[in-house]
């Protein structure tokens, strides 16, 4: 059994001396199924060969970890490549099958429909050409049908396998032994073209659908990209660069300004603003200093940090999110296709009709009874399968996808387009979905004693000092003032001093100004008794937004309100959705006050605040368990799991890659009001699919009685290939035309 032996070379973690290597080597080689183990202490690697049928890499790793070592098996990146490779192979095989089917079907079709089987050896040629179409290109129909029937289930594959299989066998018999029917006064028809056209068209449909489907794995790839590959660590008093895999828990990692944080950890030294929006969804960078937690994938602001790694590799929050998204994608139940549902009823009915007609022919039909009965049984089964069945769903989806694209709605998989119309709850993330995700200067509240004519001057002072600021909100204030002031003037600023996490002090034109939060005002004994400021201050405590105060000396002049504004049109959209029977619910990691204020502003009744990323997923599951059909719209990494779990995931095109990849529908400009159009489109598409299925089946259903012999008393026909051919052509054309209508429907 040569091929069951597998050789792997992996890195080993946790070995600190040559004795470790010995102990691990002995331990592993005693395991069942392990052939040989060579541990190399110098480069910390292991060469293991083992029998695949007795033991696996994971078991080896578990064993090693029991005595304190670890094997670094295939990295996440490699696993992603592996799944992508498999998917690509699948699509390639399908393409090959389709090409062979189409190439061989064309001559069979020409011989039968155009040359009318009048050339020499027509049947024999068709027979030879159709064998690869049925048994290579179409093999999966037979395999799937067999697997299903063993469990007593029937679907589209059953119908296809049954019809084409019987058509082939019947035609084979009539080709090899035509005398049998001729001698009994019947014409030995062949139905090779029906069989191969059905298979070709359905394969074409499958290929189109498969190609339109998204690659589920790319989202995970994007998450992995967030982890930097090389990391600077501080070991034994020296800075060294090592690959990220080699960083261990307890290492001191150095993070430069603007760099991505490569590990989960605790800040040991330094202070900075960290952009955690990819984890929390909140747009404003958070001030962090010694002993604060930082997370992998977030972006360091302007400070240099030394971080004590507490979570590396698979133990980081980011890895956990990757794992959650992966599980969510794997767990998601496949929507049962409507074509399969129809087939599961249609197939037994057709079989009953076939048996029933055959019985009538046998008991009350003309001579020869048995031949007629068998012939009817077979032809009913052959005619039942509509060729256009395979085209019904994919053509509608492609038309729907095309229609969506013109409206800025990108639909990435078929299931989403089908499932969206069933939604009765739309779960919304707040930041970046309902709101713009960017803080903006909303207004300035002035103390009553600041004269109107001085306000412009103070605004310019505010602007000038903010220009020296390192605070993330500074940018919002600056661009707000630049828009607000007609002629912005930048004054010279002296002695400016940043107090991270609080604000700044600076001199301008001989006066000292303090800008920052309330703590900063306290620190500088700035106060106000101004009734307007006090009243407004209380009012704003209950509203969304951040307040930035400015004091001249010890007197507060004003405060600026900075807010992440709601996108235009959201309120209207939510109202419209409610009319359409879809209720909105908001989930946010933000605090209760902001959540409540935003929910009220856009007219959402249900909301949850202070949520962790995993809570969003839980909420989706809970809603689903209460039998709601859930659509989820979001934009951040923290929404990714929820997007993958929801029946329909809708991502903002302005959001993070991972959210976009976890969702089936993407609103290109992040315009939430497009949800409404998406719902309409989904409804139209699903209607078109149903109509298509109707058109696909109707001609064949009409032809079934003819096959059963209703016309025999008048014309002497059982089933002529002409009828089979007409049903084939009409249904395919109707389906394609009907799908084209959807293309332009708004």
């Amino acid at each position, binding site marked *: 059994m040569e091929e069951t032996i597998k050789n792997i070379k992996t890195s080993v973690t946790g*070995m*600190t001396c040559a004795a470790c290597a010995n102990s691990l080597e002995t331990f592993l080689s005693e395991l069942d199924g392990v052939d040989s183990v060579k541990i190399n202490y110098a480069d910390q690697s292991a060469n293991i060969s083992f029998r695949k049928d007795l033991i696996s890499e994971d078991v080896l790793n578990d064993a090693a970890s029991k005595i304190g070592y670890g094997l670094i098996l295939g990295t996440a990146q490699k696993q992603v490549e592996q799944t992508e490779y498999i998917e690509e192979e699948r699509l390639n095989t399908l393409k090959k099958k389709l090409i062979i089917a189409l190439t061989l079907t064309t001559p069979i079709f020409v011989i039968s429909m155009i040359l009318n089987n009048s050339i020499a050896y027509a049947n024999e040629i068709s027979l030879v050409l159709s064998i690869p179409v049925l048994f290579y290109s179409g093999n999966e129909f037979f395999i799937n049908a067999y697997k299903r029937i063993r469990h007593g289930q029937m679907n589209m594959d059953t119908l296809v396998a049954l019809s084409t299989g019987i058509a082939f066998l019947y035609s084979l018999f009539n080709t090899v032994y035509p005398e049998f029917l001729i001698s009994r006064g019947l014409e030995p028809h062949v139905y090779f073209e029906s069989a191969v056209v059905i298979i070709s068209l359905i394969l074409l449909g499958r290929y189109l659908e498969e190609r339109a489907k998204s690659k589920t794995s790319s989202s995970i790839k994007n998450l992995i990209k967030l982890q930097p590959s090389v990391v600077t660590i501080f*070991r*034994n*008093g020296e800075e060294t660069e090592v690959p990220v895999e080699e960083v261990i*828990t*307890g290492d001191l990692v150095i993070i430069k300004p603007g760099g991505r944080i490569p590990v989960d950890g605790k800040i040991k030294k330094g202070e900075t603003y960290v952009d955690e929006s990819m984890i929390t969804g909140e747009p404003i960078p958070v001030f962090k200093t010694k002993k604060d937690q930082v997370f992998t994938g977030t972006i360091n602001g302007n400070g240099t940090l030394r971080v*004590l790694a507490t979570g590396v590799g698979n133990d980081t929050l980011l890895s956990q999110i990757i794992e959650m998204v992966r599980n969510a994608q794997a767990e998601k139940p496949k929507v049962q296709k409507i074509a399969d549902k129809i087939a599961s009823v249609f197939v037994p009915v057709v079989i009953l009709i076939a048996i029933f007609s055959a019985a009538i022919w046998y008991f009350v039909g003309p001579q020869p009874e048995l031949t007629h009965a068998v012939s009817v049984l077979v032809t009913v089964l052959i005619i039942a399968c509509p060729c256009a069945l395979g085209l019904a769903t994919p053509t509608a989806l492609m038309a729907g996808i095309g229609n969506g694209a013109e409206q800025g709605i990108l639909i990435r998989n078929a299931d989403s387009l089908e499932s969206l119309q069933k939604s009765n709850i739309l779960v919304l993330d707040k930041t970046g979905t309902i709101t713009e995700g960017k803080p903006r200067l909303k207004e300035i509240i002035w103390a009553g004693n600041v004269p109107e004519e001085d306000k412009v001057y103070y605004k310019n002072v505010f602007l000038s000092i903010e220009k020296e600021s390192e605070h993330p909100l500074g940018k919002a204030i600056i661009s707000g003032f630049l828009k607000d002031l007609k002629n912005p003037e930048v004054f010279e600023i002296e002695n400016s001093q940043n107090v991270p996490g609080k604000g700044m002090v600076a001199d301008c034109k001989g006066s000292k100004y303090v800008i920052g939060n309330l703590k900063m005002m306290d620190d500088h004994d700035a106060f106000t008794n101004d009734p307007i400021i006090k009243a407004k201050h209380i009012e704003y405590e209950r509203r969304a937004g951040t307040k930035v105060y400015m004091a001249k000396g010890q007197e507060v002049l004003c405060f600026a309100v900075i807010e992440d504004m709601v996108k235009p049109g959201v309120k209207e959209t939510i109202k419209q959705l409610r009319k359409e029977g879809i209720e909105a619910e908001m989930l946010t990691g933000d605090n209760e006050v902001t959540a409540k204020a935003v929910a009220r502003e856009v007219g959402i009744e249900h909301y949850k605040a202070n949520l962790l990323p995993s809570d969003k997923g839980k909420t989706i599951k809970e809603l689903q368990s209460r039998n709601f059909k859930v659509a989820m719209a979001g934009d951040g990494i923290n929404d990714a799991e929820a997007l993958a779990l929801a029946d329909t995931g809708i991502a903002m095109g302005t959001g993070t890659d991972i959210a976009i990849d976890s969702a089936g529908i993407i609103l290109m400009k992040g315009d939430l009001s497009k949800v409404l159009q998406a719902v309409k489109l989904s409804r139209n598409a699903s209607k078109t699919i149903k109509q298509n299925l109707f058109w696909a089946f109707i001609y064949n259903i009409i032809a079934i009685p003819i096959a059963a012999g209703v016309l025999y008393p008048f014309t002497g026909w059982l089933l002529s290939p002409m009828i089979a051919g007409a049903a084939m052509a009409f249904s395919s054309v109707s389906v394609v035309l009907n799908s084209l209508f959807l293309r332009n429907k708004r």
Partner: protein
Amino acid sequence: MESIKFKTNINCGNCIKSVTPHLNDLDDVDFWKVDTDNPDKVLEVTFDDEANEEEVIKAVEKAGFNIEKI
């Protein structure tokens, strides 16, 4: 800022790797370095403020090495 030196048996690069998490975990240690070329394998620890030699000895012993103050 205060520095203390210790004599240890922290021999090689991998020993340093295993002692790293334990020393890095100490909150008030600013800087540390082992001179493996020195026969006494001297560990030098600099503290943020006041020295806390007990803490260092505990940490290094926990990592499985011998340590004594010089």
